[in-house]
């Protein structure tokens, strides 16, 4: 390998492993192309603003003399900004260094001489693919008003309007929807073209020789055909001969069918893609939620859990492979996706960070096989996420534990324990049942001791819970030890939880006071 190739490969490795370079490239990729990036929308809005400014200046310029600074801004500043954007997009589209490294490693692996020409050909191929894409061409044409001295090139400002397609996602959605009916639209265009072509010639033949007829040239005939077939009918040109009118009848009838066909194509394209569009929107909404619970399966227990969590203002995403259950969840007001909770791709499609955004996954299908399968799927994606699961048959407990469930809820066991307490310790049962019940006015709250709380409340005696007519049941320390009825001198520590019993209203006031005073 000659020195130049060696240097090129070394440089490629250096660039590819450079954290600074990669970080910058990723930044521009996110800014220009990543719809999940929060800064992209600000960038898009800025570009849309520049486009409107540019169009505004163009319109104003038609009948007014503009100050030089505005013309300068429109012709140079905006053009340069668009050109920089064009170059950045060209840069982030594929990686030159990666292509060189890939070719080099491929050739080395096969024991061949590194063929730089092949690597360059590959680079050229993907860069040209971008350059000749419709969007890139529009981007480039939008830069042309830079040469505003050439008056003709000013009209290229209109290409800046087309750039709006890039920044407005609804336009992209519209284009993608219509693209699904490419064949039908092609057929329709062919049909309309043939009708226009034939009718133009016919009307020209019938009317051009009539000195009273306004249709005098082939261009007039073509104009008349288009106006008629589109059912616009300005009335500035009308056929006067009987033959000409007969042609008009045929074109009008063809026009009605073209219009009806076009409308039905639009409607069917949108109807077919509606679910997909909604799904994309739902996923976008989900990615914006900071913290949420994923409920896998939407049967009776799942529904009750979802409603209960919703009351506590927790965010919930329901996932079920059964469409009717998904519709149930939607009609209950939840974000629901018709995804299989047992499939890894379902979680990938969500575009969320499971570690930071998902609080827990609740496997609530009333079917142990499904819950084990879902648990294994979730565990294969993330080892740390909290998983809670329903257990329907006691003999499957070990399977769920082995699959990686953190908390198992076994309704039969719950009923057994409730019965035991009901008949053995009815007083305890009733008292605790009342504390846990949402319907009761007397409730138990757990309050986390944070740094802010500690700034003003160092000991139990300082909490003033009695002032709020609240009972301090105890402190839960270090995640494992519960200190019942602690003494006033007991120190509070960060991470402790105090369990307080009392009237809901006082509990809320007490909690607010703890934080307010700390803030003060």
């Amino acid at each position, binding site marked *: 390998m000659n020195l130049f190739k060696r240097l090129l490969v070394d440089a490629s490795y250096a660039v590819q492993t450079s954290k600074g370079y990669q970080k910058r490239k990723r930044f521009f990729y996110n800014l220009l192309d990543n719809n999940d990036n929060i800064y992209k929308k600000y960038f898009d809005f800025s570009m849309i603003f520049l486009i409107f400014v540019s169009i505004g200046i163009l319109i104003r310029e038609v009948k007014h003399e503009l100050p030089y600074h505005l013309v300068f801004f429109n012709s140079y500043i905006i053009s340069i900004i668009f050109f920089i954007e064009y170059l950045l997009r060209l840069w982030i589209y594929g990686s030159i260094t990666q292509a060189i490294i890939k070719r080099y490693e491929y050739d080395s692996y096969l024991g061949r001489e590194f063929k730089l020409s092949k690597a360059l050909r590959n680079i050229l191929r993907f860069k040209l693919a971008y350059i000749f894409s419709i969007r890139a061409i529009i981007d480039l044409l939008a830069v042309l008003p830079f040469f505003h001295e050439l008056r003709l090139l000013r009209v290229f400002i209109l290409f800046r309007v087309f750039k709006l397609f890039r920044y407005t996602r609804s336009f992209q959605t519209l284009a993608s929807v219509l693209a699904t009916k490419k064949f039908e639209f092609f057929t329709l265009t062919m049909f309309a073209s043939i009708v226009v072509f034939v009718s133009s010639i016919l009307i020209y033949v019938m009317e051009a020789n009539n000195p009273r007829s306004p249709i005098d040239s082939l261009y007039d005939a073509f104009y008349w055909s288009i106006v008629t077939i589109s059912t616009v009918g300005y009335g500035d040109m009308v056929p006067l001969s009987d033959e000409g009118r007969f042609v008009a009848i045929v074109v009008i009838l063809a026009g009605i069918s073209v219009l009806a066909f076009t409308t039905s194509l639009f409607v069917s394209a949108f109807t077919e893609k509606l679910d997909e569009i909604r799904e994309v929107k739902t996923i976008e909404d989900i990615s914006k939620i900071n913290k949420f619970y994923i409920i896998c399966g939407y049967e009776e227990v799942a529904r009750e859990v979802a409603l*209960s*969590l919703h009351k506590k203002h*927790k965010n919930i995403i329901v996932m079920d492979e059964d469409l009717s259950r998904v519709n149930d969840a939607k009609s209950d007001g939840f974000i629901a996706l018709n995804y299989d909770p047992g499939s890894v791709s379902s979680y990938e499609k969500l575009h969320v960070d499971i570690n930071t955004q998902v609080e827990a996954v609740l496997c609530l299908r009333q079917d142990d096989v499904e819950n084990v399968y879902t648990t294994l799927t979730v565990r294969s994606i993330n080892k740390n996420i909290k998983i809670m699961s329903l257990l329907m048959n006691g003999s499957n407990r070990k399977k769920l534990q082995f699959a990686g469930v953190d908390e198992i809820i076994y309704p039969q066991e719950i009923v057994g324990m409730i019965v*035991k307490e009901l008949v053995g310790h009815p*007083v305890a049962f009733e008292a*605790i049942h009342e504390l846990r019940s949402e319907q009761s006015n007397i409730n138990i709250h757990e309050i986390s001791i944070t740094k802010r709380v500690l700034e003003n409340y160092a000991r139990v005696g300082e909490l003033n819970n009695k002032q709020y007519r609240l009972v301090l049941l105890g402190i*839960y320390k270090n995640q494992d030890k519960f200190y*019942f009825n602690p003494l006033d001198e007991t120190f509070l520590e960060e991470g402790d939880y105090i369990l307080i019993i009392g*009237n809901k209203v006082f509990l809320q006031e007490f909690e607010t006071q703890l934080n307010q005073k700390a803030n003060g």
Partner: protein
Amino acid sequence: MKNVTAFVFGFNNYATEIIENLSNEYKNVNIYSLNKKDEANEKYEIKTFDLSDEWIDIEESINHENSIAFCVLEDDASNIFLTISLRASFEHLVIISLATNKESANKLQIAGANQVIPIVKTTADIISNMINRPVATKVLHNILYEESDLKIAQIMVQNTENFDGKFPADIDWSRYQGIIVLSIIHEDLSKEFIYSSQAKHKELINGDILVVTGYEADIVAFEKKIGRRHYVDWGNWSW
């Protein structure tokens, strides 16, 4: 073991859990199933019954004060029919029934069940409590279901002179014998949280019942000081 006979109607996973948990509390646990095949069960002695039964053989073994019946048939409609049938025959029998949903729970209550356990709602409440209040749920669960040192008891006040005529809300119960008083049940069976406005203005009288929580030894000491432990009369127990 003061209770005599428990009747479990229906034989399924719920029934087996109930039977296991009843064995320490009841001298006899009689199991009845609609399915003849269950009679062959080796672990439990199971008799068959029919929803149109007149309950003649059961009537002989029922002691209204110390008996309890569990209706745990899988089908809600059958369970409701069973409950209403038992209530029609045994006016004072304590009946506890399982329901899958709220609608069935309401019907079971109308049918005469003393207590209904709505399975779906109960399970869902436990899951949401584990999420919303994990620490409180764990502590309360330990008090209620696990072999925790902490207990809950109800104690009838017999020596009001200990309180010097103070109102219950004015006493620092948390420093009184190491126990925490949660609520008061008055003679008329009205119940108040210990720091409620009513408790602030109502003097304690002999016969009032305090619901307390604390360590067993402290509860015993408190009990000796102010009265005696009060046990629930199942005959009057109702929700």
